[in-house]
């Protein structure tokens, strides 16, 4: 399962498995266990399979034993370097995103709401590139249909972009590039539901791929001028004489300095510097006549600043490097870091002129990174869980069943849909009793594909829309077909259900249905293959002969933190009972199902959630 360019001599993996389990139950690394906060680099003597596994898990999404061995075979500096200062040439096998072709020029600029669209259409005779009918019933229906078409199509296409990205996460030979893009995606969070344009999200993602390990200052400027962010933070309505603070506030509060390092006045002054910043389609523009050209007073400086100069002043503040370096550290290492460590990391980033790769190198080579509090202590995010599971299974792409976006969404993380502009809180917030059970269910869906799976890009999730579709097919007129269907006998209809059918110039519910129909005509379907697994072959290739070795191999390959001995015994007994023998050789021809059950049990363990 090796991908170019890492080639090396194979080590006997069974030997590795046994070696792993003979170490302590958590991934304790002798000699480094108590090196918390020590940023001095580890030595060759400290470097082994365990350290390499930990590095690959954090700097990337984990991998197969073979991939870990490849990393372990390098020197520690070589290993860290190969991940952080990656070679783009390693990824020649990855394809660019294939667009479905859902967009057309008539859709620009897209109005902020359905009422705004119909108002525009009534005022000018057309909207979204569609003319209003001269006569007849529902003259605005085609416009409304197109409105809903774009919302649905962009949402579906965004899901495809997420799939394309997830495929990269699984298949990339430069996993740190993807992991860093994931970090920036959470840091510079924008939500598809508000941006409503998959192209802007793709542009932003490509920016994170390209600039993710370069200068943070350059990235901040690029994001501040990026249409996705401008649209998400209402920068387009930030005008001279009436500055909108949303943009300036979030830049300072969330992206660079954190609360407490600026005043409300600083926010209002900064907002003035960003006035006139807007976008047309996918291009950043500055509307000079809407730009406030007067002097601003910001963080103790005075001058006729524009947005870029504001960002540069922010970069001069000591707190900025510390804030960003700490956040990067918490994402890759652990949640709690001391003030002195935070300052040290801030210094490293600042002295490197905000070069992120320099900071990452320092973190990944440090003794602190391999100390006990840093290892096996991170609750995997839903995306990390899914991708690392797929990588550990040796898959080369993300299965279409279960649906990646549905699966990670059920675990509370949906790419391109962070809950707020603050992104995902991370850490322990990934875990609740409900979510723990969901994680076990995700594993089950991968190992035992649901034969009743319904592709969400083919069947609309709203029962209302499905009901409208059925009634239209049966020949009902639009008014009858779009009555709310859920009212029970004698029940009191809620206000919101009574509002639905008032306007005669168009029918919203019909537009919603028709828009969905138009969208699925255009959007390329996501391939629905399941995970191609053969656990029997996996064990066979390792020369596993009995159930104890089988369980130990699976535990070693899939878990970074080993469970209790009682759990291990339970798994072995379970396998014995299900196979009717302790001999793997004996059970060769029928053991696939049983192995998958064991793996499901493993993936349902609390310890499996740790990376």
């Amino acid at each position, binding site marked *: 399962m090796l991908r170019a360019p890492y080639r090396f001599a194979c080590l006997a993996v069974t030997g590795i498995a046994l070696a792993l389990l003979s170490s302590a139950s958590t991934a304790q690394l002798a000699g480094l266990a108590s090196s918390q906060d020590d940023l001095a680099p580890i030595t060759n003597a400290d470097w082994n399979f365990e350290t390499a596994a930990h590095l690959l898990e954090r700097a990337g999404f984990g991998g197969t034993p073979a991939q870990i061995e490849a990393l372990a075979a390098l020197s520690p500096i070589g290993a860290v370097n190969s991940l952080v200062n990656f070679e783009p040439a390693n990824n020649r096998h990855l394809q660019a995103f294939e667009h479905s072709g859902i967009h057309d020029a008539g859709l620009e600029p897209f109005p902020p709401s359905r009422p705004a669209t119909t108002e525009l259409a009534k005022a000018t005779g057309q909207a979204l590139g569609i003319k209003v009918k001269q006569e007849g019933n529902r003259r605005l229906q085609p416009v409304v249909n197109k409105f809903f078409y774009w919302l649905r199509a962009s949402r579906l296409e965004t899901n495809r972009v997420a799939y394309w990205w997830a495929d990269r996460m699984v298949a990339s030979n430069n996993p740190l590039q993807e992991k860093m893009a994931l970090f920036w995606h959470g840091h510079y969070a924008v939500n598809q539901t508000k941006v409503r344009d998959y192209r802007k999200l793709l542009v932003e993602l490509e920016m994170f791929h390209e600039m993710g390990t370069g200068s943070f200052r350059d990235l901040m400027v690029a994001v501040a001028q990026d249409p996705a962010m401008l649209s998400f933070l209402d920068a387009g309505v930030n005008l001279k004489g009436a500055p909108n603070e949303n943009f300036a506030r979030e830049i300072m509060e969330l992206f660079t300095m954190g*609360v407490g390092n600026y005043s409300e006045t600083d926010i209002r002054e900064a907002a003035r510097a960003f006035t006139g910043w807007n976008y047309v389609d996918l291009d950043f523009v500055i509307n000079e006549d809407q730009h406030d050209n007067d002097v601003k007073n910001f963080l103790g400086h005075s001058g006729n600043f524009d947005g870029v100069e504001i960002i540069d002043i922010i970069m001069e503040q000591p707190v900025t490097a510390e804030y960003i370096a700490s956040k990067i550290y918490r994402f890759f290492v652990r949640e709690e870091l001391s003030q002195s460590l935070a300052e040290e990391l801030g210094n490293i980033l600042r002295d490197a002129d905000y070069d992120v790769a320099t900071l990452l190198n320092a973190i990944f080579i440090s003794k602190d990174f391999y100390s006990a509090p840093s290892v096996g202590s991170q609750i995997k995010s839903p995306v990390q869980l899914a991708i690392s599971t797929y990588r550990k299974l040796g898959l080369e792409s993300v299965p279409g069943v279960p649906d990646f976006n549905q699966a990670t969404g059920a675990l509370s993380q949906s790419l391109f849909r962070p809950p707020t502009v603050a992104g995902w809180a991370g850490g*322990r*917030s990934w*875990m*609740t*009793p409900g979510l723990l059970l*969901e994680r*076990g269910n995700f594993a089950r869906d991968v190992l035992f594909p649901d034969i009743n799976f319904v592709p969400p890009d083919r069947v609309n999730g709203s029962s209302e829309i499905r009901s409208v579709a059925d009634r239209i097919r049966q020949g009902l007129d639009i008014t009858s077909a779009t009555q709310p269907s859920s009212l029970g006998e004698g029940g009191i209809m*809620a206000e919101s259900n009574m509002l639905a059918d008032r306007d005669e110039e168009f029918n919203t519910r019909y537009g919603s249905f028709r828009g969905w129909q138009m969208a699925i005509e255009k959007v390329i379907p996501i391939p629905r293959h399941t995970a191609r697994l053969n656990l029997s072959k996996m064990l066979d290739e390792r020369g596993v002969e009995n159930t104890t070795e089988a369980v130990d191999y699976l535990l070693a390959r899939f878990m970074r933190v080993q469970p209790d001995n009682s759990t291990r015994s339970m798994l072995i007994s379970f396998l014995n009972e299900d196979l009717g023998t302790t001999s793997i050789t004996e059970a060769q021809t029928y053991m696939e199902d049983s192995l998958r059950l064991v793996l499901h*049990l493993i993936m349902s363990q609390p310890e499996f959630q740790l990376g």
Partner: protein
Amino acid sequence: MKKNNKDKTLDRRELLAGMAGLSAMSMVPPAFAQAAQAAAAQAVASGKVLVILELSGGNDGLNTVVPYGDDAYYRQRPNIGIPKNELRIIDDHFGFNPGMAGFESLYKDGKMAIVHGCGYENPSYSHFTSMAYWHTAAPNSGDEYGWVGKLADSIAPSAPSNYLVNIGSTQSLAVKSEKHVPVVFDDPNRFMREAFAAEKEALDVVPDIGEVENPSRRFLLDIARSANDASTLVRDAWSKYDSPVDYGVNDLDLQKVVALLDAGMPTSLYYVSYRNNSFDTHVFQNNLHRRLLTYTSDAVAGFIRDLERIGRADDVALMIFSEFGRRVPENVSLGTDHGAANAMFVVGNQVKGGHYGKLPSLTELADGDNLAYTTDFRKVYQSITQGWLGHNDSANLLGGDFGTFDLFS
């Protein structure tokens, strides 16, 4: 509404019983709640339940409970101010946003207390910071635990299972507790282990925390235990739940609360929310805001009706809040920016309906153009913990004595 009615005659009888109490919904001046029960103040023993509904994003209180009687409102909001003839008038000064039929009825039935001008000193205009203050009852300070979590620790220090329920995709800081593991789930149908029969026994076992040192691992083992304790209860409760009540477009998870109450879940504290900063109406506010308020109003009204249907309406009080109100003058995008003081609502059969607190001035604004708070929000928390749950340890819980409104009969 969740399912089709199975037994029509029974449901019709239940509905009629419920509707008898609803005849007061037509235009009748505020009637006060039923005769007060001589209830002991021991909240847990008497089965008193508190439900908190969080509206995230900063709900614009001024366009929710509109002070049409004050000209300044229209001067400050020439475009987004709601004309009097569109409002749902409740008295000679206020009217509800047009979408809020449910709130209008509840108020006129005397079941809704509106507390004006709630906020705190030195307000934060950051969603996350201000919400954290409301969650911890520690404004301009901070606390590791949420006020609801601390309340649970205080009332029930032995931390029985399933005492605190938070319905959501992640755990809210408000319920973060030192001793309790809040039951947090989102879709009850998915709050279950989808396992093969053969695996059940193996999956039911959660090893002892014992000498586990890795703190993340200890945390996960606690979660696993709570999941096992709660999931069957929650799922069974949800599958038995069958209500004809119309909650509108978005029930805000209140149906799940009713399902759990009806199934006898031993929970005293429920936390639900209208999520994802939905109320953050910076641009083109009116259509969107009206929709949000309609859904909220429908959900709350449905909730109260449903509680009456299961005979628990006297046991439940619902508190509704947001992390801040919005700026008094509108902005150029026909929306509003982050503000400060806001209205809070307390709803329930035992609530003494009406207006509480001093109305903040619309002309003498704080911090440039924001409502100055007149009631510390912790006073409302205290009114509920003391007046409803009978818990008098506010010094510990809220960091002081903020006094109380007499909100309950």
